[in-house]
């Protein structure tokens, strides 16, 4: 089966594109908003200028109205005209206050308005004096009329100054507004075109990522189908191995044993030796076949996963050896262990394999001592694990013995099926499937196993189980 390459989604690349695009769009939007605000402000300023000019005209009109009303009143003594005068006078003050407020950001205009206010007051005073003196000295009236005219002329000059300044400002503000208004559509088009380009690029990038993902998924589905097929082949092979191949082998053993038990007295020494060798070879082959079947059956489990008390599992595994009268003496010391999510029967087999290994390879005349302990291992302390892919920490169970150990150069080899280490002491017993089974049980639990050894000082097996926090 080919290797499935892990395609890591390029999130850094996508995030960078998204971040830059978002930044540019924010800058463009803020600038666009500022532009729109400027258009609005410049329009308001133009309106403001017109308002100042209008108020200025209104003050002038009211002043003119006071003069014409005074004249009419002096000629006709009609109270309607006097009332009109009073009305116009009362209008002027609020208008002056209003224009002062509108131009408070312009010191030049404020000076003009102060001057205007002074001359307007003077002008109105003269008119009032003329009204008050209407039945008196005509010369004095004439004098006051002339003084009033001079005051009105000064007012007219100031009106001219105020309007001149406002028309100057109007010219500047109107140009500014037009500039902003002409630039707005271009700016809007720019934002639209840029957004459209970003949209197209984003679409292409996402589409390409999606295509990659779909291809990866298809590849995964193909591999999965292949895996199902291989698994089905393996099950078939397992059945053939456990029945069709076992059967003739069992018969060789039974018949050779039948010859030995029933007919040994009729056989010469050489023939009986040959038959015994056949029986021994068949027994060895039978043992290997049984180990092989155990190894295959580890994968064919329909056992449900559950929270398992490892201490109980170890006790159960140890009890199976204590009941075996042929087993060598041993002791197991177990520390506090966490409960682990796993397959109880498989975990029992796992500890049976490890205990069997420790007992089998104990030193001559020294009882095997097996110490089992557990601890949480943070991911940072596990260099062989990519912390970007796996986030959960591991729980490590250490199984240490005081047996004959092994040279560390074999630490990888010992988990291979039917591998024999170059150790004269172990002989044929080392050719088993126990540790291969242990390794595959750990794989079934999404964990792994490693081993350390020192010749004549014992072996240590580390079982790493992923745990959820």
């Amino acid at each position, binding site marked *: 089966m080919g290797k499935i390459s892990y395609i890591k989604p390029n999130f850094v690349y996508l995030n960078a594109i998204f971040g830059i695009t978002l930044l540019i769009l924010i800058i463009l939007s803020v600038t666009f908003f500022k532009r729109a605000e400027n258009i609005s402000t410049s329009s308001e300023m133009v309106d403001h200028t017109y308002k100042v000019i209008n108020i200025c005209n209104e003050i002038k009109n009211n002043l003119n109205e006071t003069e014409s009303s005074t004249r009419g009143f002096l000629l006709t003594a009609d109270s309607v005209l006097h009332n009109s005068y009073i009305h116009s006078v009362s209008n002027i003050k609020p208008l002056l206050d209003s224009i002062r407020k509108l131009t408070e950001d312009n010191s030049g205009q404020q000076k003009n308005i102060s001057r205007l206010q002074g001359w307007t007051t003077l002008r109105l005073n003269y008119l009032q004096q003329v009204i008050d003196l209407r039945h008196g000295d005509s010369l004095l009236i004439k004098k006051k009329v002339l003084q009033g005219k001079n005051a009105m002329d000064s007012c007219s000059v100031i009106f001219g100054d105020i309007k001149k300044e406002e028309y100057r400002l109007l010219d500047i503000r109107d140009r500014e507004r037009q500039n902003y208004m002409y630039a707005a559509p271009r700016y809007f088009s720019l934002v639209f075109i840029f957004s459209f380009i970003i949209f197209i690029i984003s679409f292409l990038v996402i589409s390409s990522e999606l295509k990659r993902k779909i291809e990866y998924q298809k590849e995964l589905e193909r591999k999965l189908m292949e895996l199902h097929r291989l698994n089905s082949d393996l099950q078939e092979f397992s059945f053939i191995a*456990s*029945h069709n191949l*076992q*059967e003739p082998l*069992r*018969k060789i*053993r*039974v*018949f050779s*044993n*039948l010859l030995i*038990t*029933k007919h040994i007295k009729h056989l010469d020494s050489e023939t009986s030796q040959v038959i015994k060798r056949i029986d021994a070879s068949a*027994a060895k082959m*039978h043992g290997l076949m*049984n180990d092989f*079947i155990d190894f295959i*059956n580890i994968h*064919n489990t*329909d056992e449900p996963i559950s929270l398992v008390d490892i201490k109980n599992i170890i006790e159960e595994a140890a009890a199976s050896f204590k009941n075996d009268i042929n087993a060598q003496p041993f002791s197991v010391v177990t520390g506090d262990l966490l409960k682990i999510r796993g397959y109880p*029967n498989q975990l029992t087999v796992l500890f049976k394999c490890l205990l069997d290994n420790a007992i089998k390879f104990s030193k001559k005349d020294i009882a095997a001592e097996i110490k089992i302990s557990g601890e949480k291992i943070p991911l940072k302390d596990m260099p062989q694990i990519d912390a970007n892919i796996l986030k959960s920490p591991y729980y490590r169970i250490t199984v240490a013995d005081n047996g004959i150990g092994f040279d560390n150069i074999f630490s990888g080899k010992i988990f291979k099926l039917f591998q024999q280490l170059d150790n004269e002491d172990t002989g044929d017993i080392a050719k088993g499937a126990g540790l291969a089974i242990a390794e595959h049980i750990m794989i079934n639990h999404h964990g792994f196993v490693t081993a350390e050894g020192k010749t004549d000082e014992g072996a240590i097996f580390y079982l790493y189980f992923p745990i959820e926090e």
Partner: protein
Amino acid sequence: MADKTQKVFILIAEDDADDRFLIQTVFNEKGYEEKIEFVENGIELLKFLDLRYKEKNEGVIYPAFILLDLNMPKKDGREVLREIKQHAVFKKIPVIVFTTTKNENEIRKCYELGANTYVVKPVSFEALIKVIDDIRSYWMNTACIPSI
């Protein structure tokens, strides 16, 4: 095949001639009183029992127990076991599954189907003698089963 004159007998369903020979050798060796009857597949086994059932004679004798191989041609041991244990009369006959398979699922399934015992065929002649002797001794002398 069935000998109506015989009294107690043991029925062995085994397709393999070698195994039949070995079992026969054990019986000869031990010199048991009971006779043994062999059938070679599931269909033959059911026919054997049906023949006796249809006679409906009071004197009809059923096997003391059946030694049943699982992997047989035509109709395998599992199907036969199911049919026997669903039959009103045959279900009382002890069925000892006698096979090479040690698979945990297979063992569980056979017990679910109603097997009385599950025995893995031994790998030496001495063990075969002991196993057959133990089975015979238990089902002939120790166990009490309701009469058919």
